[in-house]
């Protein structure tokens, strides 16, 4: 509770991260996949015996690498910085934990990132300027560096979902960093790494399809055929391995989180409740379509494959990536760091203490002017519920609570506060923490919003 609350009306702060993150993931995974694709393609071209095809391939690769440089080094880096801003503002507490716990990890990440940026620039600007063998080596350095950025960040991302028992045992003792490697190689590390590697390769293929779809089929039919077909092959490993990897990943997630998936099979409930199942469906169907389009339209008929087909594939890939990241976020509910910190920044072991001493006592950035129940309730709402709910927009309070009166709202909040083991909301909502007074204040505020009194708006509680 050492930070101010960041409120984004209507959209909710979670979506700010979400939108930037989907964009960023799409690009950075392309950067990793492309890191493999470019040197592999260059090596293949250099081994070609026919000088004409070789020259055509290399020319095509040079133009693809310009596009690659712009997309990854400009949009990728800018959106990456954007994520830091967004998570720093939305989940300051969690961001702090990640930074403290993985100091060495971040240091490695940034070293590789710098190497990546430097080599991609060198790679692009030295086509035809240095010895081709050396140029290829630069490409490999780029590929390895970008692969390592994934290998490292994956440990941190997977940690947030499944920190692992060893780390949990030392969490909060000040000795967390001593279990660095346990936290890093956590239960979902390997399935997640392999999944992401597959995604990287397919994204490299998808983006390569975009540039190769633009080759003129009338002027260079042979080049177009070989380029398109070779790019399609990059999609193959994912679609063979993906289903198995997803099952493996799912098995490593705690059972309480697994329940979120089966929850949606037979119920839609009020709204985003069953989002994981629904997102899983989206992933399955878009992936199947990508396979279909890639095989029939691209692999079998490369000459007819045009930019709009390639854009359709890209769009589908974007949807699949977005749905995948969204379900990963949903699986993590109600935690931001599994079993250790709730989405609203409250640490699991501090719940009892806050319940005793009051939520606002521990929030250092709450204004101290007006001390009405209403405004205290508003502060509590922003702090405890604001990371997942808004008043009118995303997961709107006014709509979710519509039709309930003050007593009913009060008992709902109390139920969240008591957090009994069999309460269904435990699956996705953290407890409401604070004293009995806090419970009342929050209920007053919510009641005021949901059932506004007809009289002119007053800022004191209606007790």
């Amino acid at each position, binding site marked *: 509770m050492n930070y101010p609350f960041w409120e984004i009306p209507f959209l909710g702060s979670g979506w700010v991260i979400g939108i930037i993150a989907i964009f960023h993931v799409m690009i950075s995974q392309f950067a990793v996949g492309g890191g493999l694709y470019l040197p592999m393609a260059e090596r293949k071209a250099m081994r070609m015996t026919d000088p004409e095809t070789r020259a055509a391939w290399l020319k095509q690769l040079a133009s693809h690498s310009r596009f690659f440089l712009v997309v990854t080094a400009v949009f990728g880096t800018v959106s990456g910085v954007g994520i830091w801003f967004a998570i720093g503002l939305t989940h300051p507490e969690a961001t702090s934990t990640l930074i403290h716990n993985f100091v060495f990890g971040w240091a490695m990440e940034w070293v590789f990132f710098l190497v990546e940026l430097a080599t991609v620039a060198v790679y692009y600007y030295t086509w035809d300027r240095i010895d081709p063998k050396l140029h290829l080596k630069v490409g490999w350095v780029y590929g390895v560096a970008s692969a390592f950025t994934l290998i490292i960040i994956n440990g941190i991302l997977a940690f947030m979902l499944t920190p692992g028992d060893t780390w949990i045992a030392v969490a909060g003792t000040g000795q967390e960093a001593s279990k660095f490697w346990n936290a890093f190689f956590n239960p979902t590390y390997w399935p997640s790494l392999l999944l992401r590697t597959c995604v990287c390769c397919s994204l490299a293929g998808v983006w390569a399809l975009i540039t190769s779809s633009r080759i003129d089929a009338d002027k260079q039919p042979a080049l177009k055929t070989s380029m398109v077909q070779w790019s399609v092959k990059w999609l193959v490993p994912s679609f063979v391995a993906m289903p198995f990897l997803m099952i493996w990943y799912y098995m490593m997630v705690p059972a309480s989180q697994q329940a979120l998936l089966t929850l949606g*099979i*037979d*119920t*839609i*409930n009020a709204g985003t409740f069953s989002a994981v199942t*629904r*997102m899983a*469906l*989206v992933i399955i*169907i*878009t992936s199947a*379509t990508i396979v*279909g*389009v890639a095989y*029939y*339209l691209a692999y079998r*008929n490369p000459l*007819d494959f045009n930019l709009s*087909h390639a854009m*359709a594939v890209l769009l*589908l890939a974007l*949807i699949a990536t977005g749905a995948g990241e969204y379900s990963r976020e949903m699986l993590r509910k109600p935690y931001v760091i599994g079993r250790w910190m709730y989405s609203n920044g409250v640490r699991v072991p501090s719940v009892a203490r806050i319940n005793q001493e009051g939520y606002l006592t521990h929030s250092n950035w709450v204004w101290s002017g007006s001390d009405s129940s209403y405004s205290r309730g508003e502060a509590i709402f922003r702090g405890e519920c604001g990371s997942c709910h808004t008043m009118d927009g995303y997961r709107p309070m006014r709509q979710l609570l519509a039709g309930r009166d003050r007593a009913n709202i009060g008992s709902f909040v109390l139920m969240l506060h008591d957090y009994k083991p069999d309460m269904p909301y435990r699956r996705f909502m953290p407890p409401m923490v604070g004293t009995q007074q806090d419970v009342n204040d929050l209920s007053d505020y919510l009641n005021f919003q949901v059932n506004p009194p007809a009289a002119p708006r007053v800022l004191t509680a209606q007790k």
Partner: protein
Amino acid sequence: MTQKSVASSVYEWVDERLGLSELVAFARHKTVPVHSQTFWYYWGGISLFLFLVQCFTGVLLLVYYRPGAEAYESVRQITFVMHFGWLIRSAHSWSANLMIFSIMVHMFSVFFMKAYRKPREFGWLSGMALLGLASVFGFSGYLLPMDELSYFATKVGLQIPVAIPFVGAAIANMLRGGPEVSEFTVQRFFALHVVVLPALFLPLLGFHLWLVQRHGNAAPPSVEALPPEQRKSMPFMPNFLRKDLAMWLISLNILALLASVFPWTLGKPFDSLAPAPAGIHPEWYFMSPFEMLKLLGFVFSGKYAEFGEIAGILLFSLGIMLWVLIPFYDTRKPTGQRARATHYFGLLAIFALLATTILGYWTIR
């Protein structure tokens, strides 16, 4: 015998009896014109695909749906209890809306390409009839869950036929099965929705598709005016078919995305004694006629109100008649040029549709 020769002898056996190779030869010769507006040719196929989705999901819903007094309860079970019932129901509702949308796009593209001209008059007429049936499908299907919204929207919707002079009230009573929307209404709408309408729709659809095969795709006048050597075309098999199927696949994706990200919800069970909830309005494809009648009601208010309703219905029927009969007065000109007047009529129709629909949604609040 090798596998291949088994397959070919089976084929020969069937071919001898059904004449498959004629079909294959026919399909091989069929071509589709290629020009800047080729994109619009896909919308008929998309509509067909969505109709197939309707048949498939509709049959699945039929397995658990119970009309009459238990209608709401059975839809509740489908939505909340059956595995993936919510998905099938959402897909059915979304695909219904998308189908009507794509039929409309198809209709307007045919209109502006003047594809209704000789010899394709029957194609236009049957297409219009299909659109009419599709909207009745929509109207009858909307009531079936019998939740609050569908109950009151149907109640309001059935006010429109009442405005027809002399027979209006009788027609409305017959549709309702009494003076009020009730279990009997659901029973009737159900019969309409799963028996009567399909029995009309399917043969008509067959006829429509047969006509398309017979006459092929029409090229717009600007393309027809070109000398033959400048006109481009692609074979239907496999080029156009492949692109058609790709479109189907994309439609399926959009449908899946909508159905799973925005699942169709179920409101409270209807209560005929409760006051109508705020914001009752017809489905979007009925918004425009609904709003036009409402506007005419404003124009002729007070003691002319009844006259206004009749005038509204007359005017409306006249407009539809003009639209349906277009192939008969906008005939082929020797120069191959488009007729300006009908072109503007089409633009006016789009404008009126959009304007009244937007106005309708604007004024709900």
